[in-house]
């Protein structure tokens, strides 16, 4: 079978709604795009541990501390799971981590924003995980089997985080005046980055046609973004919080919430490395890698000694 014929069969398979599995033939660009996407997602889980980890030692009650620890542990688990999903495409974890540390691989730009108050932990769960769920529910319908199944599993845990995050915000918004101000301030700072997190607008988005045809994505960024807005705005209102957008309005005809213009300049600047915490986040990961080198070397040396001892004993 020549490549054109294989590609045709591949497309037919995708069109018929079947999943592509790890060992099957796939176009090189399909493999490349998925590898990029899954590893980027894995990196986001790992880097995302940092802004939330920032509040573990300062969580204001023991219950909140335990819940936050469990949540960040979940994120590490997602990272592990996603690195494994990417490995099915023929790349290993070490290569992916090297790409992250050298700045060649991206992670979700939202984690370049700081967590300045306890309410930010609520905002991340509610808004960032909320946006992630909407996106990942879409990705769960994608064509690559291992990734799509990972998304189903991860979404379940994210829904839990999302509810916990909203519950933190709701509680603060209905607490003392200082707590309410803290919640509103967090919403003000996290709203637009969360909106941007779902990717460039359809008009600007590269690779869209191919990723849609191959069902790597099954809906466009703007469609997913609108779904996130429609479900989040009423939640803000229910908590008594104000969305920081003077142009926000409900369109009776379409039944959708319409937002003002998105400030894309900031989005691209942060992606290019110039956000409030880009350097800090990358430095933390680089340090973990550097500080961990002797531990990994020792573990390998010990394993080698054990093997040699086993041979000697035999």
């Amino acid at each position, binding site marked *: 079978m020549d490549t054109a014929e294989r590609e045709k069969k591949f497309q037919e398979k995708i069109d018929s709604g079947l999943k592509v599995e790890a060992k099957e033939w796939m176009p090189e660009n399909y493999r490349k795009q998925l590898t990029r996407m899954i590893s980027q997602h894995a990196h986001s889980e790992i880097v995302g541990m940092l802004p939330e980890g920032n509040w573990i030692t*300062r969580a204001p009650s023991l219950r909140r*501390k335990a819940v936050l*620890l*469990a949540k960040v*542990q979940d994120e590490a688990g997602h990272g592990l799971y996603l690195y494994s999903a990417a490995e099915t495409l023929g790349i290993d974890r070490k290569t992916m981590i090297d790409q992250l540390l050298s700045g060649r691989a991206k992670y979700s730009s939202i984690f370049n924003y700081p967590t300045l108050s306890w309410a930010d932990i609520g905002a991340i769960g509610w808004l960032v995980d909320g946006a992630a769920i909407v996106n990942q529910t879409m990705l769960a319908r994608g064509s690559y089997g291992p990734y799509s199944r990972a998304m189903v599993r991860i979404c379940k845990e994210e829904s839990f985080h999302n509810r916990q995050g909203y519950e933190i915000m709701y509680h603060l918004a209905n607490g003392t005046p*200082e707590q309410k101000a803290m919640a509103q301030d967090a919403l003000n700072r996290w709203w637009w980055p969360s909106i941007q997190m779902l990717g460039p607008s359809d008009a600007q988005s590269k690779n869209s046609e191919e990723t849609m045809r191959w069902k790597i994505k099954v809906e466009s960024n703007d469609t997913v973004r609108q779904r996130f807005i429609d479900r989040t705005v009423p939640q803000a209102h229910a908590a008594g919080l104000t969305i920081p957008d003077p142009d926000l309005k409900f369109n009776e005809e379409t039944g959708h919430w319409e937002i003002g213009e998105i400030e894309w300049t900031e989005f691209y600047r942060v992606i290019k490395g110039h956000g409030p915490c880009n350097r800090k986040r990358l430095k933390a990961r680089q340090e973990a890698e550097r500080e961990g080198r*002797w531990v990994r070397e020792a*573990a390998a040396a010990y394993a080698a*000694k054990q093997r040699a001892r086993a041979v000697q004993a035999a």
Partner: protein
Amino acid sequence: MTEKEARFEYLIRLGDNALILGQRLGEWCGHAHQLESDIALTNIALDNVGQARNLLTEAGKVEGKGRSEDDLAFFRTENEFRNNLLTEQENGNFAQTITRQYLFDVFQFHLYSGLCSSTDDFLKGFAEKSVKEVTYHRKLSGDWMVRLGDGTEESHDKMQEALDILWPFTGELFEKTEADEILIASGAVPDLEEIKKIWIEETSAKIEEATLTIPDTMGYMARGSRDGHHTEYMGYILAEMQALPRSMPDATW
């Protein structure tokens, strides 16, 4: 000292140990040398915070003044804390964290094992549940002791240095107070003398297997936590942990 006061002190001691160690381990989150270890350390932190919640809640009930787990965690001052000095020592590098963990895990494991036959229903139930968690912690930290002690020259040196730093803080794990005497008499808690014997035997064997040496401190062992005297680290731990609730004492979270 009444039996009630003895129970309160004992519960606070166990609860503070779990809380402060959990707090320390939580600092690692996102910074460990590999994902698997990050998950393991966070998991141990979570188990300890969970144990602390049970113990401090019970302590509040025993005391009978209406204090909750959070009142006890966030609104006590440094000299009211009864955690062992070992638990508050800095994380340092992974060698130091894992050595602290191992020395404490073996202690906690045998203490909880002893509490499983307590005449006190709460302690018995608590210990039966928690000893399962600690069994896993002790296995994990013990394996790392050997792996790093008997790994490379560099890892061996780091582990020996960690052991030299931490060993002097192990003595007061076994110090008894009036509360111990009262509770031993009623069969509520095991005798720390007995735990000490098992602990010495087990840790010495592991340290030898890890090709490490117990340091000679010329008989010096740090002490103080039984009287609320801590090391220089403790003030910073509490400053960080308690800042938010103390800054808004009327708020609920």
